[in-house]
């Protein structure tokens, strides 16, 4: 990795941390459970690494098992995390909305 790239990646890291703290500090306590499950879903981004692994496993059985299992687990994390967050958030209704529904 060139020094230049290292500098740029560090810059990105610094800015992402700042943006992350600012944004998350603004999430109201009402939504802390969805925040927890939602950021858990985002951390399933390891799926990207798992895909690269499973897609290049070749013939080695252990490698295939590792890659496929990694994809499965990461997908559970991503799909389950987003869906459960969606299910929770769908329940948050304003008084007005609630009356319109019923």
């Amino acid at each position, binding site marked *: 990795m060139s020094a230049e790239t290292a500098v740029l*990646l560090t810059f*990105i*890291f610094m800015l*992402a*941390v700042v*943006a*992350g703290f600012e944004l*998350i500090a*603004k999430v*109201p*306590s*009402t*939504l*802390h459970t*969805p925040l*927890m499950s*939602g950021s*858990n*879903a*985002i*951390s*399933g*981004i*390891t*799926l990207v*690494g*798992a*895909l*690269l*692994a*499973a*897609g*290049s496993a*070749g013939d080695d059985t252990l490698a*295939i098992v*590792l*890659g*496929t*299992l*990694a*994809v*499965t*687990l*990461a*997908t*559970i994390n991503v*799909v*389950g*995390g*987003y*869906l*459960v967050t*969606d299910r*929770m*958030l*769908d*329940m*948050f*209704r304003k*008084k007005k909305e609630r009356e319109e529904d019923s």
Partner: protein
Amino acid sequence: MSGPLQFVYILCAFLFILGLKLLSSPATARRGNQLSSLGMLLAVVVTLLGNELLSFQWIAVGMVAGAIIGALAARLVAMTSMPELVALFNGFGGLASLLVAWFEYQSHPDLITFTATTVFVSVLIGGVTFTGSLVAWGKLSGRLSGRPILFPGQHPLNALAIVALLVGGMMFALEPAANEQVFHAILGMTALLGILLVIPIGGADMPVVISLLNSYSGLAACATGFVIQNTVLIVTGSLVGASGIILTRIMCKAMNRSLSNVLFSGFGSTSSGGQGGTETREAKSVTAGDAYVMLEAARSVVFVPGYGLAVAQAQHAARELGDLLEANGAEVRYGIHPVAGRMPGHMNVLLAEANVPYDQLSEMDAINPTMDTVDVCVVIGANDVVNPAALTEESSPIYGMPIIEAHRARTVIIMKRSLGVGFAGIGNDLFYKDNSRMLFGDAKASLQALVAEFKDA
């Protein structure tokens, strides 16, 4: 990966950020979550298209299986079991990153030291996250005892395990190809370490543990991002890391305990006994009929739910009573303490499930200044979060923790099964105040009895 596809990663990162931004209000939060998942979908598609992958067969198998399991789990779980489900998902995420690192090593055993080091870090964090989250899941779901498991020599044992892991990691990083045995030992040790670190922590502290493990997995993603120069990993990792750290800090602050106290003190190991035994004062107990008379006359009512509401699954009954009180002309609000229940925002999710509109859910800081004008405050299965000792008794372990000041209401009705203690394991003066009335029994049963009184009237 080619340039244009890299630009798509910027879009993905932006969608994750936008998703978090929209989470700042319940009205937009759902759209935010959807945008965030769109970002994830994009990242997956770009990864599949932009790399020359050998075979898609195993990818398809894994993704289909994972999607089915994930969707079923998400749809079927009860809202009251949310904490354990998040713990489980978190564990799966940890295991996935461990497996990716293992795969990396398996396919190219002769890694350079730098890469081997990050493989080791990924395995370490991933493994600890996996078994630690499983223990947390067990404690939260009641499959394991919630009591802290303490034994003599625990701290030295943990220290030993950590030192052994670091030594093993060093050996592995320097000569990965020659040290396959060491790598397998590391795998086992990290799994063990996760268990060892979490069993001495009480069940109710599990949300802190999960947040912390989640933030560690974010930091691990950052580290991996630097290694494979993947920007989206760096950004996502930072966001997840920040979220975990902030949630951990909020919980510790609301419990007025330091993080190291949560992790190492075995807090809650004495909770079931408590000081209840030495109590000589008498609490005034009432029947549902008496409580009905008080509520019927009240113009302004505040519900304060706590962990007992979740245990009794009483959220729907609470909503029903609230609606009846409103129909009866009273102003009804719900006062939500930030750490009521067993995870941050726990009560909000339960009450939202029962269709309580979120504009009726008031935060602690909004409800306290108006407490003096409240006619009846109904405490439903809450204990520590309404304990006035936090304000007055300097010797109390929860002294300094902000509480919902239920005792300042004209009348307080407390629904719980006994005079027993809550999570912090300490007695509660509130039960013995002049304006307090205990309505003993399961919270759901008590609420239903009140609902019946209203309907009969």
